[in-house]
């Protein structure tokens, strides 16, 4: 993994000077502000504002992750700088891992910034002025943990999509399609097929295991199960593994 830290530092630096990152950050924070505003307007509700806030996590993820990851490998392949990097003792594994880690750090930073909305609201509104709590530690930590765990797979999907093409646009569209299918696919499937319990027996546990929203619900309630960790981390490993092979094969042709 020689060169991993150098690539990571470089990737964060490049992301911070890239206009696409600022567009992604601005749109993300704007969208999360609108989401939180709507959540507060709907209060009082059976659910806590923080839980509702995280339930719409997929909306900004669908465009933020493609914007953050689309250029990572695709642009370097188009420019030919990936080939230059491979003439150094840095391995394709370190390149892919460094790029993934850089995008993941920025992804998490955006979420930490978005948490400023509920935190600032809880500081600004005097205690007891509303008949509900603005801040609850367990759903906040649970929601953030879910975003962090699932984010590994989402960002890895973006890096994977970026490794397949030389076009940033194609990479972004491919990443969007993968995330759409992963996050909303089975939700849509259940919506059209009716009750999840009507799914044939042997498929039920598998589909249940893959249900993103059920996992989020569990995390928000403070139920930390090992299965989502295995699912997201293993998927991220597989996607990054394929990206390493692609970099090794295509960049050195």
């Amino acid at each position: 993994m020689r060169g991993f830290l150098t690539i990571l530092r470089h990737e964060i630096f490049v992301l911070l000077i890239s206009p696409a990152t600022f567009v992604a950050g601005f749109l993300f924070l704007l969208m999360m502000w609108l989401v939180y505003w709507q959540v507060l307007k709907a209060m009082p509700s059976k659910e806590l504002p923080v839980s509702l806030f995280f339930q719409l996590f997929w909306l900004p993820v669908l465009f933020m992750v493609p914007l953050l990851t689309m250029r990572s490998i695709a642009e370097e392949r188009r420019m030919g700088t990936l080939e230059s990097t491979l003439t150094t003792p840095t391995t394709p594994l370190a390149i892919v891992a460094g790029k993934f880690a850089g995008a993941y750090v920025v992804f998490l930073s955006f979420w930490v910034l978005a948490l400023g909305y509920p935190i600032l609201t809880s500081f600004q509104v005097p205690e007891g002025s509303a008949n509900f709590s603005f801040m609850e530690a367990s759903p906040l930590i649970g929601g953030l943990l879910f975003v962090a765990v699932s984010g590994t797979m989402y960002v890895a999907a973006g890096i994977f999509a970026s490794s397949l093409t030389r076009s940033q646009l194609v990479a972004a569209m491919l990443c969007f399609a993968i995330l759409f299918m992963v996050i909303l696919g089975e939700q849509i499937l259940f919506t059209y097929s009716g009750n999840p319990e009507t799914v044939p027996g042997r498929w039920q546990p598998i589909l249940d295991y893959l249900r993103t929203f059920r996992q989020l619900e569990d995390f928000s309630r403070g139920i930390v199960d090992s299965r989502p960790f295995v699912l997201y981390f293993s998927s991220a490993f597989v996607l990054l593994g394929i990206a390493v092979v692609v970099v090794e094969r295509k960049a050195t042709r």
Partner: protein
Amino acid sequence: MVNVEKRFANWVRFIALSPPRMIKPEISIEATNLTKVYGSLTAIEDVSFEIKRGEVLGFLGPNGAGKSTTMRILCGLVRATSGLATIGGISVVEYPEKVKRLVGYMPENNPLPDELRVVEYLRYRGQLKGLGPREAHARVEEVLELCDLHRKARRQIIGTLSKGFRQRVGIADALLTNPEVVIMDEPTIGLDPHQTKIIRDLINNRRGGMTFVISSHILPEVELCCDRILIINQGRIVAKGTSASLREEYIPAKAFRIKAKGELEGLIGELRSLDPEMEISALMEIDEDGFHEFSLKTLNPGIAGEQLLAVIQKNSSWVLREIAEVEASLEEIFLAATKRSWEETLGRKPKKIGIVQMEPPLNEPEPPKESQSE
């Protein structure tokens, strides 16, 4: 299927024919029977050569001849289908990371990230190549000065640099770690004469210390700065040696340029008495003073300028203004070598005499050009 068989045959041949590998300390780069096959296309076939430590090698060939493929194999970027490449006695395939530490490579078209500043990019590259942050900082300052980038250009965004400055950034990157071997694919392309001279001086200053492999289409430049030349065509090495030895092999004819005034037919007849097979071609017709300029080419090594001078001075009506022996340029050698390899590939008998005819012979009238009707 044919490719699989071909690859297998190449491997068998390579294993069977190659003797146990011996490390030769004086050899910096060694390529033995390198073959690279892309699908149905054989990019290079049985390429073998050695480059001594501190030598500057010019790597020439027409477009698509296999220069870049060979260079990429030497850098560990591409794996050869068969054959062996070593840098400093280390196998490129077995120890790619070790080899990459020994090689500074400037690829064709010199890809650079447009969004970074020159100094930021070089520091990043230094760290990727295994230098510590402080060491990278110090080395970057050195190469910036070496490549004349230390003034205004050092803080400039790479995307805003001119072609010449971009080339210099690429060269600075290749020299960053003071590598044992520097491989540069078209380093002087797009440079003005001043910048080209800087690069030539830079190579000359390191001659004997670093081994350079330079691919270029600017042949006079290659002749000026390279100790040895290697010509590749259609994936095969067609010529290698110093420019003098290649000249001897491919252009054995001696050439003279003469500028004289007088009755030309008689003069040509007298000159032909020295060598009946002498080829006389017109370079320029009569100038404003009535002088003819023409060139002589002869395969007789005994003919020297003094003899020609004596012949011309025999007749007082002939006035001589200039006589000079002309060495064949690298361009002529290159054309002769590649032409011979094409003729061999096509199964034609190669021409015995490597005279490259630049102009039609003087005493053979040019075929009349067809006038274009409107």
